[in-house]
């Protein structure tokens, strides 16, 4: 099995060199589908629904890009990736972009040669414990058995946190979120740790979510965002500005309800430039003038996507918090469309 991985890596490296030369944008257009890497299933972020269609907050980014580039939000081949396989899948060209709650870190950006195209969720690592344990702070977790998804930044943060606080723990490395959920519920580990959004999403899928508490400590910064291969800046720009379009649309008050009307032309120049009735922003990206309009129309602007997939009215119930617009005291700040 190891041999086949090795040869696959070599052939994939060979293929991707060709792909990089041609330009991912042209490839996607020629292929007619977007290959988008997502998680193997995290409710609210990316999971297939009852009809087998992928949906979620990360999936929405893929759909917006597909709509902008291919005019068809369903022209997507979703590739489920684990924490371990995601970077190889992207580097080898198997996927065009990765939207899989992946933390933007220095080494991933610089050493692994990827390009993070923005942040679609500002997160931090937290801990979930059964309320029956009577733990109210992560500082009380000395000696605990901790379930953790292997191959993620959480693994490193966890080691740092326990070392810094001079505490012992027993890591139980697990491959996917579903398995850790099973282990945690069976009591094979006392604590489950991952990004707080992931904890909320996982807890929402429990039978009795109210029996589990998310501890107040946030032990790391986890800016999660979509990423593409380093070096293909045209494609990187498309993904970056599609995400920015979603964020800017919320700031500018463009919603899926009023977008048709606004697209006829308004007296606000930035809205006009965003929706293509003024200027040539779309052409600069190598797309047409309606690109952003199509991207926003798929599921609405950033705020609508947030509310629909992971917001307070959903079982996951995440507050906007850091992910509010900068005008509301959050960190979302799309550069100007001009």
């Amino acid at each position, binding site marked *: 099995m*190891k041999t086949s991985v090795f040869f696959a890596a070599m052939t994939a490296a060979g293929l991707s060199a060709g792909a990089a030369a041609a330009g991912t944008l042209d490839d996607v257009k020629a292929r007619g589908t977007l290959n988008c890497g997502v998680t193997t299933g995290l409710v609210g972020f990316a999971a297939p629904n009852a009809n087998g269609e992928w949906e979620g907050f990360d999936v929405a980014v893929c759909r917006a890009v597909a709509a902008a580039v291919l005019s068809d939000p369903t022209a997507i081949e979703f590739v489920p990736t684990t924490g371990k396989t995601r970077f190889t899948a992207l580097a080898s060209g198997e996927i065009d972009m990765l939207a899989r709650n992946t933390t933007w870190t220095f080494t991933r950006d610089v*050493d692994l040669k990827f390009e993070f195209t923005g942040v679609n969720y500002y997160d931090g690592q937290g801990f979930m414990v059964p309320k029956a344990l009577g733990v109210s702070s992560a500082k009380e977790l000395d000696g605990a058995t901790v379930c953790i998804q292997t191959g993620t930044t959480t693994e490193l943060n966890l080691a740092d946190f326990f070392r810094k606080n001079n505490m012992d723990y027993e890591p139980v*490395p697990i491959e996917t979120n579903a398995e850790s959920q099973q282990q945690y519920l069976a009591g094979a580990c006392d604590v489950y740790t991952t990004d707080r959004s992931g904890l909320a999403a996982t807890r929402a899928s429990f039978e009795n979510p109210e029996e589990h508490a998310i501890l107040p400590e946030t032990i790391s910064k986890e800016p999660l965002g979509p990423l593409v291969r380093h070096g293909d800046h045209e494609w990187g720009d498309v993904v970056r500005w599609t995400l920015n379009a979603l964020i800017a649309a919320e700031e500018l008050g463009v919603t899926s309800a009023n977008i048709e009307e606004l697209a006829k032309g308004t007296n606000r120049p930035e809205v006009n430039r965003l929706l293509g009735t003024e200027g040539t922003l779309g052409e600069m990206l190598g797309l047409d003038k309606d690109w952003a309009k199509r991207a926003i129309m798929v599921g609405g602007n950033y705020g609508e996507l947030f509310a629909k997939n992971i917001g307070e009215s959903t079982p996951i119930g995440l507050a906007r918090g850091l992910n509010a617009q900068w005008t509301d005291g959050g960190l979302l700040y799309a550069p100007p469309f001009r």
Partner: protein
Amino acid sequence: MTTLTDPPEESFRLSMLINDTRYRSYTFQFIALMLLIVFMSYLGWNLVQNLAEQGQNISYRFLGEPSGYDINQTPIEYDSQSTHLRASIVGVLNTIIVAFLGCVSATILGVTAGVLRLSPNWLVRKLMAAYVEAFRNVPVLIWILIIFSIMTAAMPAPSAFRGDAPDASMVFGAVAFTNRGVYVPSPIWGSGSLIVVLLFIASVIGVFAYRRYATKLLYDTGKLLPMGWPSLAILVLPSVIAYYILGQPISLEYPELKGFNFGGGIHIRGSLIALWFALAIYTGAFIAENVRAGIQAISRGQTEAAASLGLRPRRIMNLVILPQALRIVIPPVISQYLNLTKNSSLAIAVGYMDVTGTLGGITLNQTGRAIETVLMLMLFYLLISLAISGVMNLYNNAMKLQER
């Protein structure tokens, strides 16, 4: 008079490489070898070239950097500040631990099942056939997951041991079976314990010496010494006497519920147990078939001849059949050992941190050095496989029919 003249010595011509059957095969082998080398170097060159195009290179510098992650089962000292290299070594040791445990138990299980499969007792025979067929025909990954799930779901959590009227209690107050694994007492080596241990090792050697002497006496003079109770006495008595004379230097540390988990004692993790058992029963089924084949390959006449000498069935098996069958059994069993060792790379399915989990898992992920780590993994599995077959081949040579 006729003279026989040798045919004129033909000088070597280039066309002989193709036309002369003496050289032709060399020519083609040489061409095939060249093509293979060209192909492999093309792949290698292609790899380096494409990596360079992506701005990457082959570098093993990450091995010296701190790993940053923790490992639960660490046979040697290790923490998150240790290097990636040390994390790999921890993984290697964990692989060797599970492979060793697995090989030993698979052999015991396999030989027992293989012999019992030929038992005259219908029930025993059929039970063993059911074992072999059930375990041989279901993928080992499934067995690993089944055993692990059963352990997680059926065993009590450590919290069940808490309180005045706990739901679960420790067996003999010493062993705790939990869904995180089994906690057993660990020995504490006091002063003088070395003497006891050395004495015990000497006793083991003594037992072998006694049995050898008894066998020799039997062959030379026909006098049969009792085997059972003297062996036991030699094995146990000296150590026990020394243990009490020296004032019980070895004591046991019992596992105790501390905080979230049991503390003290030895923690045999659920992941190790699941992996070990699954590999042992799976490979054991294959070894059982090898043993059965080996026994059946021994001519029926051997059994009948031994029986006509008045040997009892068990002695026929132990003294006549098995020693001959071993020669046939060992070579396929070597490859089962290799299979078991390589199958242990499925460890990550239950979170057992073998070398595929540390070097090929977390290290690969955190450093992104996929090609480097996979090359190292391949090299490691190659080396350990060669080592196992090397040792087993020595044993095979010792056991094989001595031509006189």
